[in-house]
């Protein structure tokens, strides 16, 4: 049991971060805080990918001029049949670099929108904005 909990330490952290992020998005009315929550939520996914790239006993996936540097296996880890050198899987790191770029651009667009919303409504609190929009709806109908 203890082994299970300790052995999955990364996953507990990931789940905690993921739920924290989602909770922040749902619970707060402040638009910037919503984006912070979104950032935390996305970061947890980055960590999920990084965690699953680790191969038990694997070295960093850097070719260090050992004689015979491995063949591909089904699970993406490089295993040398002679030396038994195991490399961690580098692919998820590359994927996550892409996902980080996506996350940053989403955040940038989101913050730009918040700036524009602040200009248009004079507030970044969800309640104030809802009230302003409700007044527009009432006035126009």
């Amino acid at each position, binding site marked *: 049991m203890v082994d299970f909990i300790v052995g999955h330490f990364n996953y507990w952290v990931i789940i905690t971060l993921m739920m924290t992020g989602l909770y922040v*998005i749902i619970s707060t009315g402040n638009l910037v805080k919503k*984006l912070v929550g979104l950032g935390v939520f996305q970061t947890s996914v980055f960590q999920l990918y990084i965690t699953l790239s680790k191969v038990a006993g694997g070295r960093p996936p850097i070719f260090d001029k050992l004689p015979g540097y491995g063949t591909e296996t089904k699970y993406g880890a490089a295993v040398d049949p002679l030396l038994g050198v195991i490399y961690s899987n580098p692919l998820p790191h590359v*994927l996550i670099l892409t*996902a980080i770029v*996506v996350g940053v651009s989403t955040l940038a*667009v989101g913050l730009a*929108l918040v700036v524009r919303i602040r200009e248009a409504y004079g507030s970044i609190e969800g309640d104030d*904005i809802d009230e302003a929009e409700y007044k*527009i709806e009432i006035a126009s109908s």
Partner: protein
Amino acid sequence: MNFIEMITNAGGGHLLANAPALVVAIPLIAGAVAVVLGHGKLAWVWSVLIALVTFGFSLILLQSVLGGETITYAMGNWPAPLGITYHIDALNALLISLVSAMALLALLYGWPMVEREIDPKKHAMFFGTFLLCVGGLIGVAIAGDAFNVFVFLEVSSISTYVLVAMGAQKNRQALTASFNYLILGTIGATFFVIGVGLLYMATGTLNMADISRILADSEGNRVVRAAFAFIVIGLGLKTAMFPLHTWLPNAYTFSPSMIGVFLASTATKVAFYILIRFLFSVFHAGASFETAMFDFVLAPMAMVAMIVCSVQASFQSDVRRLLAYSSVAQVGYMLLGLSLGTAAGLAAGLLHMFNHALMKGALFMAVGLAGLGLGITRVNELRGLGKTMPLVAAGLTVAGLSLIGVPLTAGFISKYYLVIAVLERGWWWAVVAIVVSSVLAIFYVGRMIEAMYLQNPPTPSAAHESDPPIQVRSPVLSMAALYVLVIGSVWFFFDPSLPKGLADTAAGLLIGGGGL
């Protein structure tokens, strides 16, 4: 097909061989170029040109898979499990053609609206972003690699958030609509990427065909089932599956007219496609967790959407929001077809997707033209449109009838096949839902038609009651684009063989060997 031969011969076969890569790369690169073009009208001409070329390439792809063939294109000649592949079959060739055709029509339609609604300094950026969105959507449809799907999904979504927010000049609510879309869309995409990560954990590959092959041997363990749940929820958000649709009505209502047309006819369709691809090709429709999801989640939610959102549509006073709620209801029809899990149901869902793109595109175009000519945004302001803008009103009426599913319109065909597929499965209560939803559609479309034809146009204070109403002319190119879609939604009643044939072929591929 002289045009296609001309392109093919010009490139000495290279263009044809690399069409799958070009159909994505051309709009993406051209999007960056459009920003440099600066001058507004020049950027528009450039975008139209690019959309035309993209449409040409999509027709080449469509033509080469008409008979049920599949093309697997290895990026940079790296073979399948390691390299990234693009995969084209009847299913996504239909989607790619739909997206590029709608992009072209939306552009042809959109210039007068863009000129009025968008600051001239931002025109180049606007068209650049639009081309990025087109490239992203085509990329989602064509990619055979699960992570690539995520990247393209985000390329299209982020540009969509920007495009929706461009409506702010018309109405500041576009900003909050865009922000809500951004939050929900990103949650959806992140759920999807969690699912892809879990699939990678379980199978060690990202190639969709490879994942499918590895999962075929097993009923799936807990990781696979968790991946399934994450992917369905994530894509459900993007598809506007009830009750994950809350971002959609405002995003459609407040976006610039041209973007409303394009989004309503493509964005949720592409998400729907990728949902089908994952449900039927990557996962196996026979797996017990999937059939349970179809019967107990997808089908009930689809029917709730069909009825609840039709009721909501009936009570809207804003025309575009009325159409947006109706879109969520129509997504319900497509999901109902999918949830049957049979080839007939899937084909009906796909056919409805195609027809709905035509009619909803036409409806948004007509409403945009009414807005351009007379500043109309509300249902009661439509009064007398039959006299002041007869052609626009006629287009709106025909597309509206197609939305109800009246015979002699394409909407009837897809609903007919859907009802047959539902009855084959023995779900008589789903037929009740379809009928109730169609009756509700009569209400909300009827409100518009009643206002247009049975009420008199508002008389200007200077004019007399007896004066003939002043007719308002619309831009010719915009009218042409509108009527292409209107005629399309009648044409495909009399000759549904093209979309029906493709939908049947696609459904056969998906239900048979998974289609990858």
